[in-house]
């Protein structure tokens, strides 16, 4: 058990460090996914199946994917030319060490570390569900509300951006093309032989001969 823990912990740590220090952003994201997987493995090792699987589902299945997607949409995925280590790295390390010390101190001093663990905590999914819906219902609802608000906010921001971006794009396409009338395809959709005739026939009676209007319903 100890060996398994050691391996998983080492893997998680190494990939976490790699996620910080690799130059290629996509590699970093993939390493991050490996770190998430290591974390999930640790949960499973602690017999916390639900949390472990949820970790895989949410963090690897969604978060990691979103990260790579975002990288692809915003950056070229090329290695960054400058050094990955920022200039103020000493401060960063100092803060990290400080946080680590504080956390360690808190954990060691809290009652959790003193209490002996029960022999085998195996909460079933049903129990988790019951707990969530009874004792923890308020936090659950609050989190739900928060996430919904965040989602709606994100959608609104994205919509605004898209509107402006879409407008720009339209303009460039038209400029690049020089066909003013193509910018409004909907108007021309209705344009058939008759409409050109009316457009062009203003000065002359000649027009595209109007075929006999025999309509056949063919498809919806």
């Amino acid at each position, binding site marked *: 058990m100890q060996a398994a823990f050691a391996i998983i912990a080492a893997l998680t740590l190494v990939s976490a460090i790699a996620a910080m220090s690799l130059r290629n952003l996509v590699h970093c994201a*993939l390493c991050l996914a490996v770190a998430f997987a290591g974390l999930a493995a640790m949960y499973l090792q602690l017999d916390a*199946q639900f949390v472990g699987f949820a970790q895989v589902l949410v963090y*690897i299945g969604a978060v990691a994917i979103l990260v790579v997607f975002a990288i692809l949409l915003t950056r070229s995925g090329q290695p960054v030319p400058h050094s990955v280590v920022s200039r103020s790295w000493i401060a960063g390390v100092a803060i990290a060490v400080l946080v680590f010390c504080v956390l360690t101190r808190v954990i060691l001093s809290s009652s959790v570390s003193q209490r002996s663990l029960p022999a085998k905590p195996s909460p079933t999914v*049903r129990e988790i569900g019951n707990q969530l819906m009874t004792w923890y219902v308020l936090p659950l609802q609050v989190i739900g509300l928060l996430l919904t608000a965040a989602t709606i906010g994100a959608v609104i921001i994205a919509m605004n951006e898209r509107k402006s971006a879409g407008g720009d794009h339209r303009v460039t396409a038209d400029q690049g093309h020089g066909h003013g009338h193509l910018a409004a395809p909907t108007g021309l959709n209705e344009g058939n032989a008759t409409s050109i005739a009316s457009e062009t026939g203003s000065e002359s009676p000649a027009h595209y001969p109007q*075929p006999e209007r025999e309509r056949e319903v063919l498809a919806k």
Partner: protein
Amino acid sequence: MIIGEFFRGLFLMIWRVATDQPEAKADLLAVFPPSARPVISAVLTVSPIIGIFATLFALTTLLERKGLGRIQNRLGPNRVGPFGILQPVADGLKMLTKEDIIPRSADALVHFLAPVVLAVPTILAFAVLPYGRNLVPVDMDAGILFFFAVGASTELAIFMAGWSSRNKYSLLGAMRAIAQMISYEIPLIISSVSVIMIAGSLSPVEIIAQQGRYLAGGFVPHWFVLTPWGLAGFIMFLIASLAESNRSPFDIPEAESELIAGHLTEYSGFKYALFFMAEYFGMFAVSGLAVTLFLGGWHAPFEFLEIVPSYVWFFAKLMGLVCLFIWVRGTVPRLRVDQLLNFAWKFMLPLSLLNLVVAAVWHFTAAWEFPGAGLGRWLLGAVMIGVPYVWLGRALSGSKKITQRTYRFAD
């Protein structure tokens, strides 16, 4: 003699599996020292699964080509072996002997890892499916969750394949694949949540056990698909699983007429075969889950047919679904990627959420006692899901200004 014991145990195991008896491995495991037993047990469980599904994979590729051929009024492969049965063998040999090409500018490590990362979770997903009355590789409390968790990690593999190839078609394919799989995972999960809600369990074994009853003198099985929410959920689950397994009409990531082969463009030889296999394994797994959730798992359709070994039913249903997939593939054109996402978010997601409500109503009307209550419940559920279906369907096609067209004729 230890060898005699071994063969006796082996025979007993096969016999017990064939006749649906529990504890099939016990006698065989007793031959080995206790310390080796977990490993031996795992090997005994895993190897048949991989063997069976690999065979099934080979047969399905043949079945697909034959079936598509017949749908298209062709003969299909019929040159290798009688009726072309050995065609998969020939294909496999060809794949294995082909040169493995890695593009010069590709990210070699990620390019190599992608098929492995894809193949492992798809095989893992087989672990929680109950194949027969006593045939569950891992009877896990959160089995369904496990299934979706490993299913979700395949997306990363497809991204790795597409990105590492350094091919624009691959990259486009990978981006499409991710968008598609994320979008369809939600209706997939939500449509199975209705089953989980009714069954009150995440364990596949428990869900199947709840579908094991028969009504009307043993001629109507108590499968969830026969309820209004179950039927709707089943159809949505099927559509979403078509998308999850990148099958036509959702084969957008590898749309060969647009993106050559999407993320597979730069793969060849054994790695390509792995991708191909993983795709089919994914299809089997998701069909197996559909069978488990909606079609009563390994239960027979009629009570008197329960004497037929249970795994026969499971695989029969599985292959039925696979045939349906093939049939759909032979019929429909491909959607465009934005239409696909629209369909997921504007049609599948609201309907599957609504389906949860329908399932809840079904659950709470279980206590109805008046005459015709069963039919009433059914109709209520059907209307609750059917009306929004029609309405949403109209809205979806109406939003595209799809109109009835008439044509003029000139003389």
